[in-house]
């Protein structure tokens, strides 16, 4: 393999797009370089559940030919991408990391996927995730965990650990993830990548297998803020197939990512999201980031969001309730796994449903289905689901008040750096706490972005989270781009995972 190929994988999506537009390289070359790197390194990482060599190459040939014929394309045409295996893709399986959908081939594309195809982005494959996106470590995948390219004994976070690890290890220049309680941002923090959860309704959910409908949102997983904005622009925008899709233009996010100017910006530090319970190295990198923003001309204020103390508990009522209903359709009747109960002659439909769901779902999924079924039960609904909706409104109100004082809010993205495989697997509460800082944004629907902010005392990446009001996603990109530029200046270039710098690509 030529050295130029491995160089290609070191470029950002924006840089690749420039080279593709100028004819310096082709999508076939770029796509092949990433496929080679996947073949070489993903045996260890397991960031992909399915690699679509043929489909990706065919798409690359197609976009090169059309470009050659003079067709004009959006920014990232020809740049390959990885897609979380929660999005329906024609021609590739969609398993959601679950046995119950093993080998299932959707007959339709998610809107995000069809937009990627229309934009001329070859799809490298489907990335690993916690089963049905339920988890914060990607250890709950029925097909085995993904490892963190910074330290393969550690998890990449979750649920979108596959997308984050793939981008961090340069197996894909960019990826699509989904974020219900932090599944894009927390893995971003733990792998040193950029992850964005857009405003709820900003990106279509059509064709994304639902975990919790009122919280789910797809978004970019990238290595730079600009790449995230470019991808966000492609996948975002109104979709008539999704009733909760916002019928409003996507704010000027690419322009904001190029601007990166925080002078005069009011930045709010959320009192409740930091300090106690946060690893000291995480807290230190966060405080340095705030100091840098201040130096760059931002005003920093402390804001308080008292209802955040109940956010995690609220999330663990709303999310499982919706999960219990959304996952009811996996019943062996129409598609997916079908298991017949042992020792039952002539089983009824109900018995087959029960046996299939018992065999097809993992423990974490079952835990949440049971929690949600209980929370929605007659007699408990008001106390659980009803109260949770009220607290949810309080969280939104806290944000509204905070945004009266500040243009963007900041916090550490996750309380710790990447944790060891198995460390939290038997302690659901410890696992759930990984999302304590990211969940409030999902409850309120507001956008959030995680940016790599350096390494903690353990040598592992730390993420700083930016939050903005509904439909003000551009503010995230502006503020994060400013900090990113200062950090890159300070570091003299991006911080790369050890596995990302390896060039062990077979000749």
């Amino acid at each position, binding site marked *: 393999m030529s050295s130029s190929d491995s160089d290609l994988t070191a470029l950002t999506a924006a840089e690749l797009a420039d080279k593709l537009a100028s004819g310096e390289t082709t999508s076939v070359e770029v796509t092949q370089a990433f496929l080679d790197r996947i073949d070489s390194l993903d045996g260890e990482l397991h960031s992909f559940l399915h690699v679509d060599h043929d489909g990706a190459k065919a798409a690359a040939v197609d976009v090169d030919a059309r470009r050659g014929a003079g067709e004009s394309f959006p920014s990232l045409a020809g740049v390959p991408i990885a897609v979380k295996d929660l999005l329906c893709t024609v021609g590739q399986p969609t398993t959601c990391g679950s046995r119950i959908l093993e080998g299932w081939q959707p007959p339709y594309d998610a809107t995000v996927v069809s937009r990627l195809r229309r934009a001329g982005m070859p799809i490298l494959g489907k990335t690993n995730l916690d089963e049905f996106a339920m988890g914060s470590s990607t250890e709950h995948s029925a097909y085995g965990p993904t490892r963190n390219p910074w330290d393969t004994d550690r998890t990449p976070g979750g649920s979108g650990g596959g997308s984050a690890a793939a981008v961090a290890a340069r197996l894909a220049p960019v990826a699509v993830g989904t974020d219900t309680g932090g599944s894009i941002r927390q893995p971003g923090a733990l792998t040193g990548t950029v992850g964005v959860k857009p405003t709820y309704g900003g990106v279509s959910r059509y064709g994304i297998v639902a975990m919790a409908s009122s919280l789910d949102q797809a978004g970019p997983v990238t290595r730079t803020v600009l790449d995230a904005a470019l991808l966000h622009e492609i996948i975002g925008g109104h979709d008539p*197939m*999704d009733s909760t899709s916002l019928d409003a233009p996507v704010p000027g996010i690419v322009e904001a990512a190029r601007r990166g100017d925080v002078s005069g910006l009011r930045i709010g530090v959320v009192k409740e999201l930091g300090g106690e319970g946060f690893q000291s190295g995480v807290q230190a990198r966060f405080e340095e980031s705030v100091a840098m923003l201040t130096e760059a001309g931002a005003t920093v204020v402390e804001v308080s969001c008292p209802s955040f103390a109940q956010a995690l508990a609220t999330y663990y009522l709303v999310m499982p309730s919706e999960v219990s209903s959304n996952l009811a359709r996996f019943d062996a009747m129409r598609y997916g796994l079908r298991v017949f109960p042992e020792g039952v002659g002539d089983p009824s439909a109900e018995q087959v449903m029960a046996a299939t769901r018992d065999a097809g779902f993992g423990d974490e999924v079952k835990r949440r289905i049971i929690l949600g079924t209980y929370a929605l039960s007659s007699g408990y*609904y008001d106390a659980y689901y009803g109260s949770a909706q009220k607290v949810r409104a309080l969280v939104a109100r806290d944000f509204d008040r905070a945004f009266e004082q500040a243009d963007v809010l900041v916090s550490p993205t996750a309380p710790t750096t990447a944790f060891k495989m198995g460390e939290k697997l038997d302690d659901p509460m410890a696992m759930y706490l990984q999302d304590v800082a990211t969940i409030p944004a999902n409850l309120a629907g507001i956008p959030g972005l995680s940016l790599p902010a350096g390494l903690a005392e353990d040598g592992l990446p730390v993420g700083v989270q930016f939050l903005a009001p509904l439909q003000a996603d551009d503010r995230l990109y502006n503020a994060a781009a400013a900090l990113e530029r200062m950090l890159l200046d300070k570091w003299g270039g991006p911080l790369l995972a050890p596995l990302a710098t390896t060039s062990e690509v077979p000749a």
Partner: protein
Amino acid sequence: MTMTAPALVDFDEALTRYEPVMGLEVHVELNTATKMFCGCPAVFGGEPNTNVCPVCLGLPGALPVVNEKAVESAIRIGLALNCEIAEWCRFARKNYFYPDMPKNFQTSQYDEPIAFDGWMDVELDGETYRVEIERAHMEEDTGKSSHMGGATGRIHGADYSLLDYNRAGIPLIEIVTRPIFVPGDKAPAVARAYVQQLRDLILALDVSDARMDQGSLRADVNLSLRPVGVSTLGTRTETKNVNSFRSVERAVRYEISRHAAILDDGGLILQETRHFHEDTGTTSSGREKSDADDYRYFPEPDLAPVAPSREWVESLRATLPEPPGERRRRLQGEWGFSDLEMRDTVGAGALDLVAATIASGAPAAAARKWWLSELARRANEQGVDLAALPITPADVAAIQKLVEAGSINDKLARQVFDGVLAGEGTPDEVVQKRGLAVVSDEGALSSAVDRAIEANPDVADKIRAGKVAAAGALIGAVMKEMRGQADAGRVRELIISKLT
């Protein structure tokens, strides 16, 4: 355990001790072009599982989008039932596992119906009974299960089941009454009249074809008894599979007799779903249903709330047809029909056909006569609705015109109906092709009358003696000779003039 016929108390006797309280739930399948939440044709029937897509099959990742036309129909139904229309309401998920439900939840409305607090005045034998409407809400239909191999066609005992999702997602409006308190002896008829008049309303709104025999209008009958003088309500049963107006009435009667027997015995009514059997007029136990049934309703997070603007609601109010009761009273006055004639016309589903025939120029009595006798008989023979016959009100009016002009008589008119129904063309064309015009050649007619008088001297004598009524026999003979193609009135005139 073997099934034994339950004890019954005579209906009238039951009413001496108990008061019935009814509740009616009517499901109306809307006639929208597409389904409730996707773009599939809302056509039930046809090759199974052809009108389906990821949304109505509930495939992973698929999302619903509300059919605006269905919301419009729901609002119009609500307005026609004198309901309030919600300014803001949501869909809810009704969660339960059943193979004919693609998502294992039904997207419905729960505590926020689109229409609520209405009423309908039911007219019966000159009395008006106000039925209060609790709510009308939108929901999607389920798929259809066919249970194969069992003796009963029910899921229990079946070898396997076939599922057709063409029906899944077809928009339904469920109209729920408040408890109906009417004198017990009237209860069965009021229930029937309510469903019948509701159907008229639905048809006038043109939001459904509202056919009970095909399931596009389905009525569930809730019934409970309470001892006379007691104000608390008894335990109710919900009877399904009630597929005709007559069955609504019979189901109420039967359940009153059955409940009374159980209560007389000191027994308890089981809160359950029961199935009505058309052939025997009885009900049998279906699924046991209790308040413990827990559908875990919660607001549908995949759909935005429905918030119809007041301007839209008012513009829809302006499209409402004349209320059926008022229209019936107006037409009855205009046509001069007796109460019985009007009831028969409505009962035969001929109101609109008669109205259109009159509008095409026929006298009211003639329009009624043709539709309710001649055509109703043929529809009955073919087992189709009157409106489904291949003849238009304009054709019927044209035939009547031919009769009035003396070109044909009633007997020939029947042959014209035959021809039109057989697709031989317009009434004029049929008359021509079949050569059906009456003989108006006075000479031919006169000689035929003379021959009839000659052949029947006894009858002729009677007429000469003043028994004019005997002329019928001679008319018959003449008509026979003329093979029916004569004006019987003219024949009669000739006979009388020749003999008196």
